[in-house]
């Protein structure tokens, strides 16, 4: 019999529905797989077999009683910054090492409502700050395709778990590429929904105007299934939009014919790894061959995206992370001499290097005398970047680009040079700045056997469009 731990979300749901196996059997298979593999991969920060199997047994009882909830009995791995009531939620930080969530994030409540099993807490860069998951305070996650390589980040644990057969599907968050880039590095599907499509309530904030929760799955169909459960207006999050959630799965039809695919010239410049460029251009070519129209577009302000992102994201982070001061939240220093000392010591001890770097950067760009030059200018540039995309989508339905200039790199290779690591986000951050949606899916691999991802970008609230395109491409690949 096929190992049920390797099933897709759609396959697992189908098997459960047809009673080919129980939720307990499915979850036990996953637990066994994690036991076997996670010593190497280290994708999970926490995984409690007893807790998982208890949920599984309950969902089997529900199914026996006629419950037919959409995700009933399927384990979903959760990035460790999404609050699930009663579970730990460390954000891979010493600050919250002993923290247990007091309430359900809206996405957690939605999964609970849909009957999903909370499968474990996946590793990440501390407070989602990083692109390799090396900034976790607790462990280094490895790439399932090459254990010497990083899985990408910040949702590296979720990507490695899904790609490594340790999870059916997972949730990640994407502030500047944190779902799409690890999906690309690990060879799975990762989707960043449009800003306002999925509630951020209960998702520990990194950069509030950029963060989005999204699915990390084995197939495009799985992404469509999971996104439908996550999306929608939330009265607890004023930045969600009251736009009807389409049946994404129903859009997974047809081929490439009639589709207008834009190639932004700013994304195809020297500097990318040739193997990445070749794989992506080959993918574009196959779309053309399948009947899509390829048009050249320009996103002239792309060159400012990295600077704008690292100003706005860090500014917001400097405020969002202020609460981890040892008073109510976060690690508390042993014997401070004053309240100020309590703040200073607790934060110095509790935060890792990258988080401190970003808090300092964010504090600096907001300081009086510097605000206009940095934050103010970055906001204006953000508007220009957003307009670039609005104009581009007048000429085409979707954009196709690489996800990252490089495939997964060696552990330790980039972490010494933060600027180099920041530049690796060049193809992913513009989508967050523009508030549009994007998906990353595998489109080939390097000679060394590392996956290469293809990024498909769509206009805000155009998720069905990129899912449809990605699905068509995936079908062509498989064929």
């Amino acid at each position, binding site marked *: 019999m096929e190992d049920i731990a390797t099933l897709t979300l759609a396959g697992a749901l189908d098997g459960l529905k047809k009673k080919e196996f129980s939720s307990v059997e499915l979850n036990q298979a996953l637990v066994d797989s994690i036991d076997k593999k996670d010593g190497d991969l280290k994708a999970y920060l926490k995984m409690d077999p007893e807790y998982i199997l208890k949920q599984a047994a309950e969902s089997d009882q529900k199914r026996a009683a006629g419950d037919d909830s959409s995700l009933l009995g399927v384990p979903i791995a959760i990035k460790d910054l999404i609050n699930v009531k009663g579970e730990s939620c460390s*954000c891979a930080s010493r600050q*919250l090492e002993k923290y247990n969530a007091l309430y359900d994030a809206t996405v957690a409540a939605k999964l609970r409502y849909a009957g999903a099993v909370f499968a474990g807490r996946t590793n990440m860069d501390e407070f989602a700050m990083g692109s390799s998951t090396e900034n976790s305070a607790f462990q280094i996650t490895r790439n399932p395709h090459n254990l010497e390589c990083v899985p990408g980040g910040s949702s590296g644990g979720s990507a490695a778990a899904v790609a490594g057969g340790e999870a059916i599907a997972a949730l990640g968050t994407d502030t500047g590429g944190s779902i799409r880039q690890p999906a690309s590095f690990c060879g799975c599907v990762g989707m960043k929904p449009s800003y306002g499509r999925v509630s951020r*309530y209960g998702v520990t904030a990194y950069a*509030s105007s950029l963060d989005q929760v999204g699915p990390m799955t084995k197939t495009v169909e799985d992404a469509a299934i999971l996104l439908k459960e996550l999306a929608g207006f939330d009265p607890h999050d*004023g930045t969600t939009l009251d736009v009807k959630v389409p049946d994404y799965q129903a859009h997974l039809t047809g081929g490439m014919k009639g589709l207008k695919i834009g190639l932004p010239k700013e994304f195809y410049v020297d500097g990318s790894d040739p193997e990445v460029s070749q794989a992506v251009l080959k993918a574009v070519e196959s779309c053309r061959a399948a009947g899509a129209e390829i048009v050249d577009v320009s996103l002239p302000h792309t060159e400012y995206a990295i600077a704008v992102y690292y100003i706005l994201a860090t500014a917001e982070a400097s405020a969002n992370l*202020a609460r981890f001061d040892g008073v109510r939240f976060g690690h508390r220093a042993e014997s401070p001499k004053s309240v100020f000392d309590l703040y200073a010591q607790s934060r110095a001890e509790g935060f890792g290097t990258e988080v401190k770097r970003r808090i300092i950067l964010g504090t600096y760009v907001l300081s009086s005398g510097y605000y206009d030059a940095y934050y103010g200018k970055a906001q204006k540039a953000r508007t220009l970047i957003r307009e670039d995309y609005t104009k581009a989508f007048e000429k085409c339905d979707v954009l196709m680009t690489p996800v990252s200039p490089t495939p997964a790199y060696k552990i330790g290779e980039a972490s010494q040079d933060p600027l180099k690591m920041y530049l690796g986000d060049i193809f992913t951050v513009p989508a967050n700045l523009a508030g549009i949606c994007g998906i990353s899916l595998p489109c080939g691999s390097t000679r060394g056997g590392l996956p290469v991802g293809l990024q498909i970008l769509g206009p805000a609230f155009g998720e069905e469009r990129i899912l449809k395109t990605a699905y068509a491409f995936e079908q062509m690949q498989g064929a």
Partner: protein
Amino acid sequence: MSKYLITIGLETHVHLKTHTKMFCGCATEFGSEANTHVCPVCLGYPGALPVMNGEAIKQCVIAGLMLGCEINHYSTFDRKNYFYPDMCKDYQITQMEKPLCIGGGVTIDTPEGSRRVRIHHIHQEEDAGKIIHYARHSGVDFNRCGTPLMEIVSEPDLSSPDEAMAYLHNLRQILVYAGVSECNLEEGNMRSDVNISVRPEGQEELGIRAEIKNMNTFKGIYAALEYEIERQLYIVKKGGTITQETRRWDADLGETQSMRTKENAHDYRYFPEPDLVPVTLDKEMVEQWRAALPELPAARRERMVKEYGIPEYDAGVLADEKPNADFFEIAAKLCGEFKTLSNWFMTDVMCLLSESGKTITQCSLTPKSLAELVTLVKKGVINGPTAKELLPELFNDGLMPAKMVEERGLAQVSDSGALESFMNEVFEANEKSVADYLAGKKAAAGYLTGQVMKLSRGKADPKLVNKMIAEKFAGMGG
């Protein structure tokens, strides 16, 4: 010796009268057990997000309309960053760039005539928690954290502590009339920061200012202003310079003390609050709110003079506190005796209020019970002195006068037969007074009336007694 000019500006924080907090569903109730009105949002739990309280926005806009402000139909919120244990998030959600209300003003009376004190803007924000110090540690009560607060920032248009008082008094009156705040000073509903500077007459440019933070009584503000002006004048007259700084008022010592100088001033690093979308106000809706605005105190005074024919002075006293004017108007409609009612209110009722330290809404007197009392006197069922004796029980115990009169048999005696016999008894027992009267000492009649009242145990109608005594003397040739 040159004269000095004083410049004062106020930033007044006022709690709005919403049932729930600014960004969550917690109650805004005052005086509950510590940390009982809290939730992940107002405690700043990781991942929690603020949600706008539309009622708070409406109340702030109504306050703005009452104060003659221009309303920003597109308004945004900002984060103000500072570390302090009374605010879990370590930033306050407030408005910096585009506040809800711009301009406006408060008219005050000064010895030189009435003058408009300009308002710079009004913005909406959330309050912080309350720090409580114990012997060996400190605690924070977060019940107040997240309570909707509006900050009314005046222009530096005030030139004396008296003007500052007049401004605050009128501002408070308007906000209470607007129905947007109780402005209860004891509960910290209305707190002010003051900015003060002095400069020699003839100098255009304002002097260097000091700010005194967070005072919640008018008395304290007045004393702090007086002290601070004195302090600054002393320095300037000696040829010294004022330090730009933030100071604190120590009510026990009766002095202001330095908290931090400009060099150590906070850099609040304001930036747009990304968790809240801008507030857009529909123009038509704001016009509807404007059309439904309650009366301003001055308009009410005028109307009360016209409608009830009471003197301007009376109307002024009554309208000073909105609940008093409300009480009067309800009672007036019940008894129709406007001037008499006004007299009762302004003398006996206000006397009881000041003795008890209660407000009209806190005591047990109702418009109905006072109206009934006035009617009983008017109809001659009881006399004035009896009514005055009953009032404290109406005030303290909420009793109804008609029922008391009936149960206690207090109706006044106007039966001339009964009075006749009381009178005869008195005349017999007081021959000397009768003789005095007949000898020309008319004052003796008063004594005799008093004796008749005494015999009737206060229930005789004194006017009738007077009349009967006069008639009797007339018959005796007096």
